[in-house]
């Protein structure tokens, strides 16, 4: 009986890995900033949220994404609510893409992801600059966008493998 419960728990953990990674990434940002590589940074939660909202939206609940955004704001020091707003917008864009797509194509997703992060980041940083008097270093911001876009394809392949292993081949 105990062994059976352990297996159920392990199964639950494996299924919920994307949520766990999301919370770990907002609490501990996977961005390798400590390497101090000049101009290199990327936004991992954007990739994770977009991919899973597109491929299997029930994995990342909107409530969890909202909470993850709040935590991200607290850790980074942004006004509370701004990251949640962006994350949920990304979910909206992904849901829209899912609704209009008949035959999923990774490159189409990739370029739609670029459009999504351009819109959400523009909104986010416009709000920060106009209403919260933040000063930004625009070169860094653009490079962050570029690396986030480039790394999407890499993480998409990794998530695809996980998806196939855990949920089988079919997508939504």
């Amino acid at each position, binding site marked *: 009986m105990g062994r059976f419960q352990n297996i159920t728990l392990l199964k639950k953990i494996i299924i919920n890995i994307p949520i766990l990674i999301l919370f770990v990434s907002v609490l501990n940002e996977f961005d390798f900033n*400590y390497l101090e590589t000049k101009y290199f940074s990327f936004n991992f939660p954007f990739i994770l949220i977009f991919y899973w909202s597109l491929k299997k939206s029930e994995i990342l609940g909107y409530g969890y994404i909202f909470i993850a955004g709040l935590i991200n704001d607290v850790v980074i020091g942004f006004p509370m609510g701004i990251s949640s707003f962006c994350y*949920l917008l990304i*979910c909206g864009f992904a*849901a829209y893409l899912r*609704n209009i797509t008949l035959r999923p194509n990774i490159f189409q997703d990739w370029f739609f992801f670029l459009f999504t992060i351009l819109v959400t980041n523009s909104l986010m940083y416009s709000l920060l600059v106009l209403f919260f008097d933040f000063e930004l270093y625009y070169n860094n911001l653009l490079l962050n966008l570029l690396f986030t876009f480039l790394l999407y394809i890499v993480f998409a392949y990794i998530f695809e493998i996980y998806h196939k292993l855990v949920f089988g081949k079919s997508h939504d």
Partner: protein
Amino acid sequence: MEPSRDDFVIAIRSAFLNKSNKQRFSLIGLIFFSLLLLILGRFNLTVINYTKIVIKETAYRSSFIISGPENFVKKIYYNIESHFELYDDYVNNKKKLQDFKVQKLENDFILSENIRLKKIINDYVIESEEIIAKVLIDKKSPFLRSVVLNKGSRSKIKLGMAVLENNYLVGKIVEVNYLTSRALLLSDLNSKIPVSIEPGNIQSILSGTGKNKGIIQYFKEEKDITGESIVYTSGSGEIFKEGIPIGKIVSSKTKTTYDEEKENDTKIIFFSDFSQLQFVKIVAFKKDNN
């Protein structure tokens, strides 16, 4: 064209308004709630402030625990890096130590003389009790240079207190919670500190760049600054006491902008390495009434 426009509207409505079977909350509802939080955050409401403090305390502690493995990797990375530079550092330090020994004797004399003279003109500034704090979170984000410290209002931390490392200024407290606080580093784009450049007593404003360097923004008067000039706090605005060392000038030039206005481009290297902060000293300064 009409059907495709309809499709677009249906897809948008379905994406944002329809609550999917397996989602507990509606997307548009949560988006509006995030915006409401943002708007309420602008006002100083007690309920919102308390909610913020609870979320912050929980997130900071959780982040510290979850950052454990990454901090371990980071530590190994820095250790390996410092081992490669060990011998060169040793030779340089040995040479510097000799010079410092001589300078310290001179400094001790000047310091005691300074205290005596300031007491005469009633401008002697004393420091509050030093509070040593540990750096809990240091994200090194390119957009916001700040660190979270493990001391808050319970340890009598107040907004605006100076944050020092080895007696070098590294930032100031910009957010205080019950058990934690956030220090904005001098390298942040939003950091503006009144400074004095010596020799020459040039008054100016030091601004962060988002990188590990600072820039001198405004000069009250245009004077030549040499590459060896040292930047201290000026004490203007009574935020910090004057004379806290910050960094040294590494390059100084004046460039002309598109509007043909002369713009200063003086870069400063900070004495403290902001990427290596582990423990900091938090102090407040006030005038001695005796």
